[in-house]
C-alpha cells in the first residue's frame, strides 16, 4: 500500500466508490441470471481500484472513454445507479434512453464519452478529445480506458504516434486483466506492452491495479503534468476480472483455473485490501464500514426495483436521434 494521505474523506469516498461498483455488478449479474436483463454484459468486479483510483484523480470536465466492460468506469466517473440500471434494462429513463444498453452507456454530465462495443474503438475518440483540449486551449485531460486485448488494434499505434508528436493531454490506461476473452494475454501480446508506448517516446508506468492508492497517486501526478502540456502518458494497470468474459461465460476452466481465480479474490482483492488499510489506519471502524456497505446495497436494491418498474421508451423514439437537429 502507498503511504497514507491525510484526507480521510477522499479515502472513504474511494472505498465507497469501489463498493458501489462491486454492488452494481452483483445486482447486474443477478438481473442477468434471473433473465430480467436483455442481452448480456461484461462484469467489472475485481478491477474496481483501477477505475476508482483513476477517476478520483479527475474532475467532471476531464473526459474518459470506456469499454465493453464499462460499468466501473461509469460509476467511478460519477454516474448514478438509477439511470444506469434503467439503461441496462432498456428503459426510457436510462442514460441513453434505452438505445445504448450495457455496452454503450455514456454520461455526458460527468465527462464519460461512452462505453464502446468495438475493442479499441475509443482510442481515436479519446485522442481526439485531447486534441480538442489543446486546440481550444482548455485544460482538461482525457483518459482512454482499454484492455490488454485492445493493444492488438493498429489504431492504438496510429493515435499514440500523433499524441506523442503533438504532446496531447491524454492518458492511455491499459487494464491488463490477464485475458482477452478466453485467451491468456501472453498468447496475444508479444514483447512488453509498456515498451510499445515507450517506443513513441511516451512515458509509461506499470502499476498494481489492485491498490487503489497506488493507482490514484500515480494518476494525480500524471494528470497534473498532462494539464501542463507534458502528456501523453501510458499506464498499464495489472488487474483481474472475477467473472467470466461476459455473464454467460460460466464454464471457463478450460482457459482459467479456479485456483487462480480464488487466489486473486482471496489475496489481492482491492476492496478487502483497502478496507483493512482504513481500519488499520483508524480512518474507519469495522462497524462504520459495514454501515457504508449496507447503505450502498440499499441504494442499489432501490435503483433496481425502480428500473424494473420504469417504462420502456415509446415506439416513436425508434427513429429519433439518428441525426442531430
Amino acid at each position, binding site marked *: 500500500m502507498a503511504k497514507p494521505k491525510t484526507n480521510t474523506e477522499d479515502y472513504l469516498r474511494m472505498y465507497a466508490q469501489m463498493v458501489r461498483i462491486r454492488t452494481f455488478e452483483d445486482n447486474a449479474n443477478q438481473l442477468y441470471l434471473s433473465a430480467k436483463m436483455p442481452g448480456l454484459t461484461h462484469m467489472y468486479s475485481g478491477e474496481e481500484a483501477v477505475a476508482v483510483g483513476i477517476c478520483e484523480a479527475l474532475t467532471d470536465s476531464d473526459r474518459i472513454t470506456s469499454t465493453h466492460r464499462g460499468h466501473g468506469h461509469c460509476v467511478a466517473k460519477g454516474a448514478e445507479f438509477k439511470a444506469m440500471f434503467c439503461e441496462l434494462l432498456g428503459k426510457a429513463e436510462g442514460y441513453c434512453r434505452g*438505445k*445504448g444498453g450495457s*455496452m454503450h452507456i455514456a454520461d455526458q454530465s460527468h465527462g464519460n464519452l461512452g462505453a464502446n462495443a468495438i475493442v479499441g474503438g475509443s482510442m481515436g475518440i479519446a485522442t481526439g478529445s485531447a486534441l480538442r483540449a489543446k486546440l481550444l486551449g482548455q485544460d482538461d485531460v482525457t483518459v482512454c480506458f482499454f484492455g490488454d486485448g485492445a493493444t492488438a488494434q493498429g489504431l492504438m499505434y496510429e493515435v499514440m504516434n500523433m499524441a506523442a508528436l503533438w504532446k496531447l493531454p491524454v492518458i492511455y490506461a491499459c487494464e491488463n486483466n490477464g485475458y482477452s476473452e*478466453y*485467451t491468456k494475454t501472453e498468447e496475444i501480446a508479444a514483447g512488453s506492452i509498456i515498451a510499445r508506448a515507450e517506443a513513441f517516446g511516451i512515458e509509461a508506468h506499470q502499476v498494481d491495479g489492485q491498490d487503489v492508492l497506488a493507482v490514484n497517486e500515480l494518476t494525480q501526478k500524471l494528470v497534473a503534468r498532462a494539464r501542463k502540456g507534458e502528456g501523453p502518458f501510458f499506464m498499464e494497470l495489472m488487474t483481474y476480472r472475477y467473472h467470466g468474459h461476459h455473464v454467460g461465460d460460466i464454464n471457463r476452466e478450460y482457459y482459467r483455473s479456479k485456483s487462480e481465480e480464488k487466489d486473486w479474490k482471496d489475496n489481492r482483492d482491492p476492496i478487502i485490501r483497502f478496507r483493512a488499510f482504513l481500519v488499520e489506519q483508524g480512518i474507519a471502524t469495522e462497524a462504520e464500514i459495514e454501515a457504508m456497505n449496507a447503505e450502498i446495497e440499499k441504494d442499489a436494491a432501490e435503483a433496481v426495483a425502480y428500473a424494473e418498474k420504469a417504462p*420502456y421508451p415509446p415506439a416513436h423514439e*425508434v427513429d429519433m436521434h*439518428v441525426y442531430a437537429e
Partner: protein
Amino acid sequence: MREITLSQAVNEALAEEMRRDPTVFILGEDVAEAGTPFKVLSGLVEEFGTSRVIDTPISEPGFVGMAVGAAMTGARPVVDLMFGDFIYLVMDQLCNQAAKQHYMSGGKLTVPMVLRTNLGATRRSAAQHSQSLQALVAHIPGLKVALPSSAYEAKGLMKTAIRDNNPVVIFEDKLMYQDKAPVPEEEYLIPFGVANVKREGRDITLIATSSMVQVAEKAAALLAQEGIEAEVIDPRTIVPLDEKTLLDSVKKTSRAIVIDEGHQSYGVTAEIASRLNEKAFYHLDAPVVRMGAMDVPVPFSPALEDLTVPTPEAVAAKARSLCAGEMTDAA
C-alpha cells in the same frame, strides 16, 4: 434425414474441406480452444491442431490482410470475423486488396479466401453487434456474397466457398446457430448463383435472404389462410445472383416483395427490386416493394429493437395490399 444445427453444419463443412485439402486453414479470434463465442468451431482444433486453427490477437485488419496474402500464394484461408459489424475494420483489406487482385493483375493472381461472419438483430446486442452489412460487400466487384438461410445451405455454400477461387464473404444469421434442419450425411455442394424456390405460389413472389427467409415463409403461411398463394424464393447468394429464377417467378406472379435484414435504403432489396423493374416491368401488376431493416442504428431496448426488422405480419400485410391492387407507399 438426420437434422443438425446450423452451427454443426458449418463445423462439418469446415472439417470435411480441411480433411480434403491440406491448404485450408482457419484464422480468427478465439477460434481454437474456445471454438468461437458461438461455439461453432468446437472440436476443430482437436482434429487439426493449432497450426490450422489459429487464434489471433484482436487485430482484424492484420489477420484479414494475412489471409489475402496466404490466399495469393497458395493457401485457402477461412477467416472467422466474430461479428459482422467488425467488417468495417477490415474494409480496406477486403475491398481494396482481396477484391481487386485478380482484376488488377490481368487474371494472374487469385485470392481464394473465405470470410465467414454473421448478421442479424433482435439479440439485444445493440448498435455495434447487430448489423446486417451484406450490402456493403455486395457492392464491391470481385467479392462473392453468400447468405445461408438454414443448416442445409450453410454447409453446402461453405464447401463451395472454400473451393471457389475468389474471395467469398459468408454471413450466417447468429440467431439461427441452434436451429436444426435436415442435412444429408453424404457430401453435397450448393453451387453459387442458384436460387432455391422454397414454396410455390401464383399470386406474389417473396424474395428473401438469410434470416428473412423464415419470415417470408411464415408470411406465406399467413397469406395461404386467406387464399393468397405466395411463392418464396431464397437467392442463397446475392453475388452471383440467380436473376433468371427471380424473373421467371415474377413474370408468373406479377408482384414481388424483396426482404433482407440490411438497412432498407441503398441496400440488397433495392438492387434486386430494381433488376425486376428493369427486366420484368411489363409483367408487373404492382410496384416491387422493398422491406429491409429500418434506417436507424439498431437500438438496444427490446421495445425499440423489435420495431426495426420486418416481421411475418408486416410482410403479409404488404402482400395483401399489393394483391388487392391497393396503391402502396413503397418506401
